[in-house]
């Protein structure tokens, strides 16, 4: 039996499989610290948004759901962490956990409505919820500071040792470590039977029902997970910038994170991270280059990616790899049997 097992199921060789990844995860923060310390802030921003995009990927890339209101969870996480810090609960890690809990709860509540509809309606219902939460936060100025943003956060040092500094060093390592932990959990989820179920639901919900999967329950679970990760991302953003803007709840951010994910490649573990990096860095470079017309460049990047790299940056890499894989190739050609004409004939 074993030869038929895909290599990924073999328990041995774990280090071989993940070794490169681990090296990468260690190399990136080291490289930032050594060579680009003045880019701590940008890197922190990328990491937090990368986690946010990763959370959306669970929905869009894996479970095949649609959302234009994902900022709702990011923002609720940010405001939870922010309000805790304003009102004396400055301990960051417990703040993250509480934010995750609140966001997950909001995810659970909204999932019932969101999963009742599909396609455009699903897009619009998520958008509608997002806008409603935004409006609510805007109105509740006494609580959130409205459009002036939430000010006065006092965040304690991480683990009581690392103070948040002006250079953003602590912020960067804090965010990066949390991102890494979340990524490990997300990888677990994706590699688990549950993750496989999500992919099955994306590929063919009808068949999933036919193998006995309670599809709504699974999707709800995915929705809650995505909300939790988004909430953590928002809380990270709030704690590291010690400020929460109303924009963290906005439709614009929901759209932006979707763009990031699609740029990077949905349905790929690294799609959100790559997309966030591409988008944020492109925007930073282009807007430094030309603060007035940088949007043209960002739009251009999006258009070019669609035209020349369908499925995003990682999508094109993946299909290149598939094309180069010899096994897949032989079987594909075999799949189109041009049956020899001699075999035919009429009576």
């Amino acid at each position, binding site marked *: 039996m074993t030869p038929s097992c895909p290599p990924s199921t073999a328990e041995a060789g774990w280090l071989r499989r993940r070794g490169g990844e681990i090296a990468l995860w260690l190399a990136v923060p080291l490289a930032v610290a050594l060579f680009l310390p003045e880019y701590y802030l940008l890197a922190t921003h990328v990491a937090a948004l990368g986690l946010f995009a990763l959370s959306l990927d669970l929905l869009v890339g894996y479970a095949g759901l649609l959302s234009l209101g994902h900022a709702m969870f990011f923002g609720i996480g940010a405001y939870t962490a922010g309000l805790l810090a304003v009102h004396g609960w400055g301990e960051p890690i417990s703040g993250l956990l509480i934010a995750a809990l609140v966001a997950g709860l909001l995810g659970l509540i909204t999932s019932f409505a969101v999963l009742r509809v599909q396609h455009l*309606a699903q897009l619009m219902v998520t958008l*509608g919820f997002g806008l409603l939460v935004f409006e609510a936060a805007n109105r509740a100025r006494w609580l959130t500071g409205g459009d002036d943003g939430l000010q006065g956060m006092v965040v304690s040092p991480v683990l009581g040792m690392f103070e948040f500094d002006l250079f953003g060093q602590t912020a960067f390592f804090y965010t990066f470590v949390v991102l890494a932990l979340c990524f490990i959990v997300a990888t677990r989820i994706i590699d688990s039977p549950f993750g496989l179920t999500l992919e099955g639901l994306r590929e063919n919900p009808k068949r999933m029902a036919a193998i006995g999967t309670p599809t709504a329950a699974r999707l709800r679970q995915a929705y809650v997970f995505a909300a939790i990760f988004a909430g953590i991302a928002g809380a990270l953003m709030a704690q590291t910038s010690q400020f929460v803007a109303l924009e963290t709840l906005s439709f614009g951010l929901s759209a932006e994170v979707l763009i990031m994910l699609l740029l990077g490649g949905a349905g790929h573990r690294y799609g959100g991270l790559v997309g966030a990096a591409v988008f944020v860095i492109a925007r930073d470079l282009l807007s430094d280059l030309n603060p007035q017309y940088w949007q043209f460049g960002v*739009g251009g990047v999006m258009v070019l990616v669609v035209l020349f790299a369908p499925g995003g940056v990682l999508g094109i890499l993946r299909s290149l790899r598939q094309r180069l894989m010899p096994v897949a190739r032989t079987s594909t050609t075999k799949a189109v049997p041009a049956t020899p004409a001699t075999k035919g004939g009429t009576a």
Partner: protein
Amino acid sequence: MLAILLTVLFDGLAYGMLLFLISIGLSVTMGMMGFVNLAHGAFAMFGGYVATTLMQRAGVPFLVTLPVAFAVVALASIVVERLLYQRLYRRGPLDQVLFTVGLTFMSVAGITWFYGPSQQPVVLPAFLQGQVNLLGLEVGIFRLFLVAVGLLVAAAVVLGVERTRFGAKIRAAVDNPVMATGLGINVGGVFALTFAIGSGLAGLGGALGIQILGLTPAFPLKYLVLFLIVVSVGGLGSVGGALLAACVVGVIDMMTKYFLPEIGSFIIYAVMVALLMWRPHGLLGKKS
């Protein structure tokens, strides 16, 4: 009190007509051709700029700019469709979203380059300004004009789709593209032309809407949500649905502003969510 209610209702309808004009093309492209064109607002904006440019730089009368805006945008959209969109018909909706939002960004920056970021002025001809007394109601002449144009276009679109040979071709192509092709209808061509008309109407709406919606390069992003609400609540591809939804949105918007200004945009979003939970395919949408 009744007079106030009617005035607000009328204003809401006028606003709804604008939304209808701009949204109908989006509804058609998404509903009939299955193409998610989030750059639709950019076509409307383009129409607006065509109109202001003609008025300001060439002194063309307002009423003349309207058909020109329609025609220019329709022609431009054919170029865009043949050159770009056509390549994406077989792609998934997410690719289409990324692409068309990218195009929108580019057009926003492009228009800013040529026209600057600020609001474009529009001066309506004197005969469209002020108010008239209509059956005891004080109504804005321009809004009356909007309602008239909106109803006219709605009627023309409905008649065009229901009564003409081209309309029959559109319906046939939507009903069953394979059979339509087999009977000699060039489905791609029919769709391209439909797309052009839809975009042209957006251009017309953009030109008409300067007075009420304003015209800045941010237009396509600012109103995208509103257009999507109209399309989804109305039901994809449904002319009547888009008209109904646009009027509902316009009236609710006007009513809440007048009677419940404190609640702001809550109601419109809540109503949208409720309507979509009730009828996921829109008020007059067909189940796909």
